[in-house]
């Protein structure tokens, strides 16, 4: 049955998450200004306290489902700005757990592994990846070379799952994935990336220079398998963006309300001021994006995360979420006026943070390509 209401258990979990938002906001500016300092995995204010995720697990049968509550919690965690509890889970490790052999899962399944895909010349188009893997015929080891950038979580991680290309077979150089642990000779870390926003978001670059790993480190995760993980993470990242957008929207609403400007839903557009009208439209855009994300997660709940069935919906959720996050952050700053430029408030920070969400984890254009190919029944060749 069509239903948009949260269960009591959903409400309890989200309430707990919302109560913690003020703690995050208190730390947000510090880590914005100290980008080389990684935030702790757990902040003292919440150490030892039950987390919203613990509560969600405890109430699992009574929530709207694990995929839905998970995405809503991602939104709340992002709303709180700084992650008060960072889990030691990276995308790379999710792929190892999904595609690795039992021996590989035993070795790395609980290690924190980032995923290293992007290179200076290859972002949205992985076919442009130039990093290489060459087999050493004597030892059977692999020699990796390449430069990997914008690697999320790598500063704190134990290593990364690195995507490179092997030697040509029938003229095609296959994608290959290797676990590279920190401390491996030939892995040269380049430090935190200097970004416009999300500066507390651990992001590193590194170089592989004749980096030798044993064959055991090769994970049978081809590009297609890697992409299936994105079906789950794209709507999640869209929810992250919306969390930032809502932080700005709430701040804008509260600030304007203190100046006597509130949105009324009864009148039509003719009775609204320009400010009221814009606020109402931003609220609508926020809700439209949120519902698109929830629809995708509901499908995932129904059909399974790794079924691949939600590929198009995941792209749709990411595309509308990214668009909404951009527009809401830009318009809120304009509605707030010049005082919002001051670092005395978090608004300017959220504005900077928001812009990444239509770029990483599938840029808006990539998601539109995926939706359009499906809609038009075109192959990647027919619609490039």
């Amino acid at each position, binding site marked *: 049955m069509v239903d948009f209401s949260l269960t009591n258990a959903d409400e309890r979990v989200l309430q707990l998450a919302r109560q913690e938002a003020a703690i995050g906001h208190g730390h947000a500016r510090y880590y914005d200004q100290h980008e080389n300092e990684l935030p702790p995995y757990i902040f003292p204010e919440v150490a030892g306290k039950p987390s919203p995720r613990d509560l969600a697990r405890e109430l699992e049968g009574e929530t709207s489902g694990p995929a839905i509550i998970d995405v809503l919690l991602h939104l709340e965690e992002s709303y709180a700005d700084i992650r008060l509890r960072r889990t030691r889970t990276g995308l790379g490790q999710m792929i190892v757990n999904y595609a690795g052999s039992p021996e590989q899962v035993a070795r790395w399944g609980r290690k924190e592994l980032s995923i290293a895909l992007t290179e200076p010349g290859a972002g949205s188009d992985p076919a442009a990846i130039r990093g290489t893997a060459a087999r050493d015929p004597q030892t059977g080891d692999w020699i990796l070379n390449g430069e990997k950038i914008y690697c999320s979580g790598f500063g704190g991680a134990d290593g990364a799952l690195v995507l490179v290309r092997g030697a040509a077979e029938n003229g095609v150089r296959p994608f290959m994935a290797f676990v590279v642990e920190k401390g491996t000779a030939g892995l040269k870390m380049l430090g935190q990336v200097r970004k416009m926003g999300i500066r507390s978001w651990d992001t590193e670059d590194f170089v592989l220079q004749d980096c030798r790993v044993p064959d055991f480190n090769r994970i049978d995760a081809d590009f297609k398998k890697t992409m299936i993980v994105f079906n789950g993470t794209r709507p999640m990242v869209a929810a992250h963006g919306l969390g930032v957008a809502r932080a700005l929207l709430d701040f804008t609403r509260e600030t304007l309300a203190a100046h006597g400007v509130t949105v009324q*839903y009864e009148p039509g*557009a003719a009775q609204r001021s320009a400010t009221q009208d814009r606020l109402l439209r931003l609220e609508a855009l926020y809700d439209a994006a949120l519902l698109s994300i929830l629809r995708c997660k509901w499908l995932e709940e129904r059909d399974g995360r790794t079924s691949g069935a939600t590929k198009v919906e995941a792209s749709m959720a990411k595309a509308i979420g990214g668009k909404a996050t951009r527009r809401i952050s830009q318009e809120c700053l304009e509605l707030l006026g010049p005082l919002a430029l001051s670092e005395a408030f978090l608004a300017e920070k959220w504005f900077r943070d928001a812009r990444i969400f239509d770029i990483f984890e599938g840029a808006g254009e990539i*998601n539109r390509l995926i939706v359009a190919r499906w809609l038009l029944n075109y192959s990647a060749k027919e619609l490039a």
Partner: protein
Amino acid sequence: MISFELSEEQRVAQATIGEFARSVLRPSAREADESTRIAGATLEAIWSTEIIQAQAFDGGAEVGRSPIMNALLLEELATADATLALAAAAPMAFVQAIADQGSRRQRDLLLPLFAGERFTAAAVVVMEPQFQFDVTALATSAERTGDGYLLRGHKSLVPLARDCSHFLVIARSGDVTDAFIVPSDSAGVSVGAAKGTLGLRGLAMADVTFDGVSVPAAMRLGEHNGCDVQRIIDAARTGIAAILTGVSRGVLEYAVPYLKERVVHGAPLARKQVIAFRLADMHIEVEAMRWMSWRAAAELENRRPATRSAQLAYTYAATQAMSIADEGVQAFGGHGFVRAHPIEMWYRNTRSLSVLEGIAGV
């Protein structure tokens, strides 16, 4: 519990009405637009779906009035044609308001009129002939006189006005907004000639004036309890959001095969990213519009406050639908501007729909 799952009944009804709309309504759409009237046979065909009659029964999704079901079906009807969807949605709004908020006596008196064999028109009458019209600033007034009311005002854009047996007139009454049931043959009621409109032309929307019409207290909706006019407005906004979802889906579905065939500079238009991305955006937005209207409908169905979600669904749909119709015309080029294709009609219909209030119902 968050869920987007349709029931078996909802899916069957959706498919049945969708097929009816494609085979019966779509072929009649252009003729209704050109002649500014809907053929009697088409109205009877709409009546035969029983979507209007169902509003009289409080049976939920399976056998009667269900805002979620109505949102689904209005989208299906409007995917074929918005004018004909409104020919159903306008009387639906009237019947819903009576069934929902009428007194026992009012329901017994009026609902049987909508159980007959022939199409029966009636309308909720909200809009007035002023630029910048707004539902919260009505000029039409109902003045208390002894045991009744004296209704004075000028209403406009009433769908199928000449055919209506009854109007539900929304008017200011002292400090509140109220609704009054007025038979169209009451003394003082005059229905103007249809002057023609930009879009939705088949509805022959006309002005109706109420020149000191005396309305007995028994015909105030809900009698001494009065009614919740905002709920009628919320249902209408939700209905228009569902109809706009359908119109936009119609544009997209019509555009895809054409753009895959039309070759420009050596390749089909659809293989150019600028066109393909617009189509992707249309699809993404049609879906978002749908979830917004479903949410408002779900709140109406569960009798929760729906004003916010209805307003957001309506405003969002209005903006997105206009942009989709606009891009539709652009993608068709000259073919989008000529009346040989329905695209220009949908463009006019979209601009019309998205400024209307009170005209539909879920």
